[in-house]
């Protein structure tokens, strides 16, 4: 909303007010609806002895006559004014109100003046005078400052730019009266950027005069530079729009516009022969005519009195596409000789659309680049941008520097931010945050005129799209943009934090928060003002910078104040506040667990606990938990023994395998918890660091899960993170990829590993953090882990520290070497997928080479080819043939060319991995216990499984059929065995589900082909690619029903 002229005038000194009146008059004369900065400029220029005119005269470029340049400036201003919309509705007598941008300029100059030391005492005097009278405290803007801030307006500086002025120069000239201007100017001159060009200074003054800024200008200059060279002086423009730049360049030369050329080659003549070349190459022009034309060129060069002739041969593409090879060759040689003969005075210029085309030509004429003395010039701008419409007044209207922090719902935002997370603050906190911003703003401006505005600050802040706000915001933007941004960011962070801590659960109840009308104005609260005043001194913002550690404490402090305040103001607020406040009491003590469940970690191993646990045992565990958490210091060694046994039994009960490891782990934990830690003698630190090495990834995880459950009471207390960055690509069907969080997980968006851990720990300090592949950790994670293990504090990337004293860190590395003899390596089983299975019956016996075969012993038709490649296990009525395994190489990254992977081995990669090893050694020296895991015995498990399947198969199909089990299926069953907590879960699955499948398929077989009775056929158990099984609980990652065909 524009400001009435009268209130704008109040802010100005008489002199400036007169200028404003003139501007208003200009606007009225043109019947414009608002008075803008442009009107002001027009008015200021029209006075014969105006400061602005004077400044312009001093700042103008010396290349043009002053009269001409002022004329150009006036033209530019009037053209810009013509573009403004005129109002029809207003009566001509009305004063057009002051536009937002102009009002912003006035306020900017006010602030500027206030900051200026020479006027400061004046300002204070004013303030004292005014404070007694009214709240109307203001600085009267002097004309000088008024002009300065008008010049800051991009529209204005654009207009001046069009006329060949630099608004910065004019500003300097305005600021400094004539006698000292020379000196001052050099002090304040903007930096020279074109230093890499030899002719910097000539170019700086050579502004494109009078109006349009030619996009090609820069390109032309570059061409000029090449032309001025001694050797390889013939530019070949390369790029999609090279031809249009070439045309523009030659046209400009033809009309004698050559300001962009270095002086020594000014006045270059152009001869364009591209048409002739084109005609000649397609055959419309005879060779003689072409030669004649070239002769003409040569004559012209020889007779040329100026510095020379430039021959435009056009688009080089024609040399590839058009014409017979003979004519092209002829032409090329002709041009080459031309270059040789009249070297000094002749230039060639041409264009080529793409590098590929150029390469084709070079393939034909390898010597071309040298013979023609070419210099490739990349052309990248594709369009001539002549309309200059990129500066409109509407743009300024929207210049709201920190408006983005306000929750203005736009269509785009709504469409893209459907996730809960994007809305970080609940509306309550948001409102408080906005209020604080407004208070802070108010404080920053209590002495400015803005307070005169009839509208309350809070309301304009909350409706940032309204026009008034734009005007007043611009003021702040110019004055303390950085400061306010920092303030707003700080406040925002603060409230996000508060909201996160207090109202975290509220986000889950949008129906409660939505729809409740909030009061827009908060009662004045001295405490709150105090907080923001603390923030609004500049030092405060600096302290809010993320890396500063003190800042964290400070925010903490502020949060506390605010929290108590939230409780105080409880009765004044609508019911939803009550909800929040009650939350406040409960949530501060009990951390939320929503994130941990989101990760799905808790459900990984969930299988119904069928065996009832002995009662006394449970009690003992609880005893342990209690003692572990609270009365640690009082624990005696007697306790330790008891504790260790309880822990060991609880873990062994849950895990089953890895007995030795469990023993070691329970010992370490009991020792650390009772204060006998080897690493840190003091009992203050109770964080425990374990390193699991060896193989059996699943076993490590099982133990970690069990540990989380036993020590911290729930599986949700486990956070598992895979540090191996190579594992980032997951397959939806893969069994093991579902198991842990890694980089690509959504919870990692925008965070580093340590950020994530720190965040989780701050929510819930009693956690078990499982870091898989610690050997693959990046350097930053390494550093912060090292620091954490030394100090007991984990610092995130913002420098905030989180205490880790109640957590257990388990790190795993997989450095062990596997025995080659195994048929089923851990590596292979880790690739298992959870697919649906299907049973097929076929009469042709041609098993896949990777499959396992169960052959009837008495079968005479043993295929030697099959058996030669397989390991044989005799088993009752069957011979089990397990395919021999080829040792698989480590996987290749398909993105990389092969030769590069080899090269990388011996280059820097070596040193990087070396430092990683060194770090790992250091790190593992500091952990409380290193536990080496035994490899999981896949082979004997596979044997057991196959035996069970054999029995099952015999029961259903009898003993004269062959069973083929696909490798994928076998690996899937093995993976399931590995993951399952119960040893006989697989046998149960075979006896029930697989058996049912066999029986069903046998029945179908009877129905369909009774004839086949007696003759042996092959039963196949195959995986159905792409159909994933859901884990239904009966057996991990195995189908609950097998398809039969």
């Amino acid at each position: 909303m524009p400001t009435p002229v009268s209130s704008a005038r109040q802010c100005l000194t008489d002199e400036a007010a007169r200028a404003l009146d003139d501007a208003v008059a200009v606007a009225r004369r043109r019947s414009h609806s608002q008075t803008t900065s442009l009107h002001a400029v027009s008015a200021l220029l029209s006075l014969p002895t105006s400061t602005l005119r004077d400044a312009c005269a001093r700042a103008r470029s010396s290349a043009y006559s002053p009269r001409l340049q002022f004329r150009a400036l006036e033209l530019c201003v009037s053209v810009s004014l013509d573009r403004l919309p005129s109002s029809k509705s207003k009566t001509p007598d009305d004063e057009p109100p002051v536009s937002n941008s102009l009002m912003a300029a006035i306020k900017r100059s006010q602030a500027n003046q206030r900051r200026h030391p020479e006027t400061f005492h004046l300002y204070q005097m004013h303030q004292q005078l005014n404070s007694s009278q009214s709240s109307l405290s203001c600085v009267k803007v002097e004309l000088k400052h008024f002009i300065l801030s008008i010049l800051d307006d991009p529209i204005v500086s654009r207009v001046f730019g069009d006329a060949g002025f630099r608004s910065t120069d004019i500003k300097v000239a305005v600021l400094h009266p004539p006698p000292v201007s020379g000196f001052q100017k050099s002090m304040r001159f903007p930096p020279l950027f074109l230093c890499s060009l030899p002719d910097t200074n000539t170019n700086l003054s050579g502004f494109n005069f009078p109006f349009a800024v030619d996009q090609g200008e820069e390109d032309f200059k570059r061409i000029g530079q090449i032309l001025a060279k001694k050797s390889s002086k013939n530019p070949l423009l390369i790029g999609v729009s090279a031809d249009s730049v070439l045309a523009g360049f030659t046209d400009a030369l033809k009309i004698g516009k050559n300001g962009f050329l270095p002086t020594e080659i000014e006045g270059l003549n152009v001869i364009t022969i591209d048409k002739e070349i084109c005609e000649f190459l397609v055959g419309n022009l005879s060779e003689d005519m072409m030669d004649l034309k070239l002769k003409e060129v040569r004559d012209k060069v020889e007779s040329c009195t100026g510095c020379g002739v430039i021959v435009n041969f056009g688009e080089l593409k024609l040399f590839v596409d058009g014409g017979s090879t003979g004519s092209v060759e002829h032409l090329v040689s002709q041009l080459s000789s031309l270059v040789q003969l009249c070297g000094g005075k002749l230039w060639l210029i041409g264009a080529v659309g793409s590098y590929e085309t150029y390469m084709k030509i070079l393939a034909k004429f390898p010597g071309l680049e040298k013979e023609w003395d070419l210099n490739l010039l990349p052309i990248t701008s594709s369009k001539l941008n002549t309309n200059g419409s990129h500066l409109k007044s509407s743009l300024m209207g929207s210049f709201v520097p920190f408006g983005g922090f306000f929750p203005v719902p736009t269509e785009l935002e709504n469409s893209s931010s459907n996730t809960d997370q994007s809305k970080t603050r609940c509306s309550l906190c948001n409102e408080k945050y906005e209020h604080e911003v407004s208070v802070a703003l108010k404080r920053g401006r209590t002495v400015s005129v803005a307070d005169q505005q009839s509208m309350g600050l809070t309301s304009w802040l909350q409706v940032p799209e309204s026009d008034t706000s734009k005007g007043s915001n611009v003021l702040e933007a110019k004055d303390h943009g950085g400061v306010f941004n920092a303030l707003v960011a700080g406040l925002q962070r603060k409230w996000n934090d508060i909201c996160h801590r207090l109202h975290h659960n509220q986000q889950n109840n949008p129906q409660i928060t939505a729809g409740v009308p909030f009061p827009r104005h908060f009662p004045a609260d001295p405490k709150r003002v105090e907080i923001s005043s603390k923030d609004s001194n500049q030092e405060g913002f600096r302290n809010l910078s993320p890396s500063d550690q003190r800042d964290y404490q400070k925010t903490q402090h502020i949060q506390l104040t605010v929290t108590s305040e939230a409780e105080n103001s409880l009765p004044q607020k609508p019911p939803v506040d009550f909800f929040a406040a009650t939350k406040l009491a409960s949530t501060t003590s009990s951390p939320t667990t929503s994130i941990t469940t989101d990760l799905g970690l808790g459900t990984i191993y969930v299988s119904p606990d069928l065996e009832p646990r002995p009662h006394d045992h449970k009690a003992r565990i609880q005893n342990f938990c209690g003692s572990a958490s609270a009365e640690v210091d009082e624990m005696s060694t007697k306790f330790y023994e008891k504790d260790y046994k309880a822990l060991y039994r609880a873990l062994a009960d849950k895990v089953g395998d890895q007995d030795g490891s469990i023993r070691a782990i329970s010992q370490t934990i009991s020792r650390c918890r009772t204060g006998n830690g080897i690493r840190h003698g003091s009992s203050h630190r109770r964080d425990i660091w374990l390193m699991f090495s060896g193989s059996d990834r699943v076993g490590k995880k099982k133990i970690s899960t069990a540990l989380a459950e036993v020590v911290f009471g729930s599986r949700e207390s486990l956070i598992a993170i895979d540090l191996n960055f190579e594992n980032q690509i997951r397959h939806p069907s893969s069994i093991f990829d579902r198991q842990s969080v890694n980089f690509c997980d959504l919870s990692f968006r925008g965070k580093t590993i340590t950020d994530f851990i720190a965040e989780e720990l701050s929510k819930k300090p009693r956690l078990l953090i499982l870091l898989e592949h610690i050997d693959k950790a990046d350097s930053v994670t390494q550093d912060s882990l090292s620091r954490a293990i030394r100090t007991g504090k984990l610092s995130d990337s913002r420098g905030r520290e989180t205490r880790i004293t109640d957590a257990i860190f388990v790190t795993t590395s997989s450095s062990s070497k596997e025995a080659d003899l195994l048929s089923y390596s851990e590596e292979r089983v880790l690739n298992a997928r959870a697919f649906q299975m299907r049973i097929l019956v076929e009469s042709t016996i041609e098993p896949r080479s990777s499959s396992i075969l169960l052959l009837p012993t008495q079968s005479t038709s043993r295929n030697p080819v099959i058996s030669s490649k397989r390991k044989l296990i005799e088993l009752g009525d069957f011979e089990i043939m397990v395919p021999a395994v080829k040792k698989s190489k480590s996987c290749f990254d398909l993105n990389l060319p092969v030769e590069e992977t080899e090269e990388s081995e011996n280059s820097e990669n070596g040193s990087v991995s070396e430092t990683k090893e060194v770090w790992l050694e250091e790190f593992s020296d500091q952990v409380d216990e290193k536990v080496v895991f035994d490899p999981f015995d896949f082979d004997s498990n596979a044997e057991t499984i196959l035996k069970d399947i054999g029995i099952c198969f015999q029961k259903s199909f009898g003993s004269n059929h062959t069973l083929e089990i696909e490798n994928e299926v076998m690996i899937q069953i093995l993976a399931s065995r590995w993951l399952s907590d119960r040893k006989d879960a697989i046998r149960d699955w075979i006896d029930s589900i697989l058996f049912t499948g066999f029986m069903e398929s046998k029945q179908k077989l009877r129905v369909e082909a009774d004839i086949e009775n007696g003759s042996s056929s092959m039963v196949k158990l195959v995986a159905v690619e792409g159909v994933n099984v859901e884990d239904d609980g009966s057996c991990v990652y195995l189908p609950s029903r097998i398809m039969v065909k």
Partner: protein
Amino acid sequence: MGPSLLDALNVRVVGSGKKFLLLAHGLGTDQSVWSRILPYFRSHYKVILYDLVCAGSVNPDYFDFRRYNSLDAYVDDLLQILDSLGVDRCFYVGHSLSSMIGILAAIRRPELFSKLILIGASPRFLNDKDYHGGFEEGEIEKVFLAMEANYEAWVNGFAPLAVGADVPAAVREFSRTLFNVRPDISLFVSRTVFNSDLRGVLGLVKVPCCIIQTAKDVSVPTSVAMYLKEHLGGRNTVEMMNVEGHLPHLSAPALLAHHLNRALSR
């Protein structure tokens, strides 16, 4: 002579390695965008950071609308920074606009660059006959109109799209830097970028390049990464990042650091 270019563009050199690593930010951000990436490299490299002249952290007076109307002026700045720092060879990591600048700089002074790592790079944003740049000309005009009409609303809409709405902190960070840019400069540079077409000159790049492309990028379709790989003149690799967003250094810093590390060590 006023403030030097190094001061004007806030050039910083941090870290203790032997080799130089230059991190160049894209449009709408400033060097602070690398703050999450920096810790990963400061122990192994001397990391050079600077602000493009169009960044919000640079005095807008230095932005000469006449000079910066093509990418070459930015290249001049970059090369001059390297020269005045006495850098004879460096790794160059450029995001978006800076990846274009890096390509052009490597054409002009190939000896300065041992490798270009281009994040969210595109030689041309507009679609063409047999080229899919991701934008139609009409769309671009609409975007420009939207920017002109209400910069604030545009930023509010664009930031979550570019970063990914699921990372509010990163969206805020991007919005902040985007807002710091004066709207007219932002618009002007956007026009410059959209008017640029590097397709013809890609073959002139002989420096090995690594193109890092996220799985979903609103500004750069995946096909562009393949186009770059095919047309850039040196040995090129493409690293696909299995995350979304045009600004992986904000939304997935740890992962990007890994990719950068991998690209740098090859």
